[in-house]
């Protein structure tokens, strides 16, 4: 075990969940939501957020039942040895797959905006190095980094969406519910939307570090509600500014939103690049926390003392995977599978494990 010292406050847990959740997928979330739900895409985001808050509640209750252990340790006891192992593999695989997609999103965003001619290996390579370096730090340091970065990103992101409201047209959000614009058959996109929400697994891994484990439920619910609020607000403002058709046409809607903010007499001409620069930190926290969780999860699964060495070993694999995603379509495809994993974990395994823990707990008493 990596030194189990309880030094995280419940506020830091909330921010860790935010940090893993809010990242690159936010930039594309509104257009996916609009694709499925038309002008009422924000409602979809809102409702999904509420669902995930429910999932988060289960996860947090489960975690609070085992305040000394991570899910990797207690899942074999609840599910049986082999099923538990399988679950752990799925769990770690999910977190692991987030990393290459994250690296890839960063590289795409940087390459279309900040450094159009920089080679991909340079951008993703330097990012990956710093990412893994950060992820091998102790957990309290990680929480501090995350705390700082995610707050900056959120403040800038929200002020950009607030600024864009000058172009907001309520008419763009109408009609509120028109069945012909809701395309539930686009199941892949629908699942893709949930990619942005899969941040709950943090809870099951960091409970041993929390100062007061009984507060974890509150922190988790708070975090998922904040995520829901942020996403809904963002989707709402994107749809209101662009209208849903233009929203679907744009690939990085979040950035385009920043581009359309018209602030006169500022030192910097364009806000979109400012947004990107700060959004790099939001992307970074996602990768950082995912890498950390993979490292500590793998270390526990394989009974290795140093997870950081494992992580450094995985660097080439992550880099290779991130280059495998050939283009936008391929990686949105990948995010579909990742989101599927997160759906299964959140809405199948967590309730199941929770019920099992209730049952087994009673039997022991």
């Amino acid at each position: 075990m990596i030194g189990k010292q309880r030094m995280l406050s419940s506020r830091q847990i909330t921010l860790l969940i935010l940090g893993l959740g809010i990242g690159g997928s936010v930039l594309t979330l509104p257009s996916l939501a609009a694709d499925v739900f038309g002008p009422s895409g924000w409602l979809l985001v809102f409702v999904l957020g509420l669902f995930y808050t429910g999932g988060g509640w289960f996860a947090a209750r489960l975690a609070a039942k085992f305040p000394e252990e991570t899910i990797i340790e207690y899942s074999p006891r609840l599910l049986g040895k082999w099923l538990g192992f399988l679950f752990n593999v799925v769990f770690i695989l999910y977190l692991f797959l987030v990393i290459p997609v994250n690296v890839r999103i960063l590289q795409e965003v940087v390459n279309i905006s900040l450094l159009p001619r920089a080679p991909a290996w340079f951008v993703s390579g330097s990012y990956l190095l710093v990412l893994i370096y950060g992820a091998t730090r102790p957990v309290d340091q990680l929480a501090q980094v995350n705390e700082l970065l995610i707050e900056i990103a959120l403040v800038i992101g929200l002020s950009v969406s607030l600024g864009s409201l000058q172009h907001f047209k309520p008419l763009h959000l109408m009609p509120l519910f028109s069945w012909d614009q809701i395309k539930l058959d686009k199941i892949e996109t629908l699942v893709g939307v949930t990619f942005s929400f899969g941040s709950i697994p943090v809870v099951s891994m960091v409970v041993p570090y929390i100062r007061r484990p009984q507060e974890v439920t509150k922190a988790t619910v708070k975090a998922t509600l904040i995520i829901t609020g942020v996403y809904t607000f963002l989707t709402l403002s994107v749809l209101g500014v662009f209208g849903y058709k233009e929203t679907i046409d744009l690939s990085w809607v979040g950035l385009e939103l920043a581009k359309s903010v018209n602030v006169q007499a500022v030192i910097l001409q364009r806000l979109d690049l400012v947004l990107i620069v700060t959004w790099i930190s939001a992307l970074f926290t996602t990768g950082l926390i995912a890498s950390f969780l993979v490292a500590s999860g793998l270390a526990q699964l394989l009974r290795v003392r140093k997870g950081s060495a494992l992580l450094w070993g995985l660097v080439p694999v992550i880099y290779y995977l991130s280059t495998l995603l050939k283009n936008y379509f391929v990686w949105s495809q990948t995010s579909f599978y990742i989101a599927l994993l997160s759906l299964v974990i959140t809405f199948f395994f967590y309730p199941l494990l929770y019920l099992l823990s209730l049952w087994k707990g009673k039997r022991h008493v």
Partner: protein
Amino acid sequence: MTAESKKACLLGALLLVILTASGCWGGQELNARAFVTAVAFDPITEEGVDPGEFLLGVQIPIPAKMGGGGGDSGEQGGGGGPPFVVFETTTKMVSVGIRQLQRQLDRELFFGHTQLFLINAELAATIGVDQLMDHFKRDFRVQRMARIAIIDGEARAILNTQPPISQTPSAYIENLLSPQSGVGINYISDFGRFLVEQSDDGIEPVLPRLKPGKEATVTGGAAVLKNGKFVGWLSNFETRGLNIILNQRIRSNYEVECPLHPGESIVVGVDNFHSRHQLREVNGQTVFQIKVRGQFETIEFSDLHGPLEALQGDLERGVSAVVQRELEQTVRRAQELGVDFLGVGRYLKSYKPEWWRQVKDNWAEEFFALPIEVEVEMEWAMTIRRFGG
């Protein structure tokens, strides 16, 4: 822990090595770039050319002439000639044209600061604004806040005129296009807004119209687009009507006949227009109703001013009638052209989605047949400064 610090140092050094070894990616000195401030599209007038070809012109300011060396730059500033150059080429595709232009230039064309896209009306009718702007739509560096206008005349002429006060035509035009007079369309002059309106169902975008003159360029009026192609102009007054219908916050002046003294006129300044749209059943037929309310203020009397109290009712009715005539003219023009730039379709889509689904496929005809009613109610704000003449 010392080992950890060492690792941090090592990583930092490694990063530094990577960074330095890799050179600077795509980095380019400011002076190695040619900032394009304006782009103009014109048709080719010669006979026998491919109708798909057009003239692409870019305007590039000369930094040394514009920037100047500060206080003691007497030898630079007055170097003669305009502070910009214009390059042209003929092409069928914009990006190909840019590459052709690049061959004449020692500096890389840079569109991150492009403030103006000027499209000749004729070209906009044949090739279409959509196709011309497609390249710029996909370039991340082009700003969504760049301005776009349809030119009644030669677009190049605007690039080449030295404006009366500002340093470059682009700065001049940009200021000209910002909302001032009320007779120019202003809600859509920027590129991002154009794209949004363009993609939206049930509304066709209009673009501001510019007319190049010998000395100065004049703004006013608007160009109507249908499916991205130019179909006709709106006059100054029709444009003003459109601004009112679409709830743009404009201020404008109207000249009305004095109800008490026939033959005399009163100029009123109107403010605070507010328009509401709704569907109404009249005799079993659905009517699209545009309700406009506004406040005006008398700002000039031609000769006799009459007692103000007696004037009120008649003047309010008079102004309402004038505004209503203008709005009806705008609506008629829209129906004549068969282009729904009023946003009637968008209204239906939002509030009567069932109906919209039935009519959207042949909306042009449906729009022509749809009765549209305009109702105007103007109030005299009466913040009087002077009672007497």
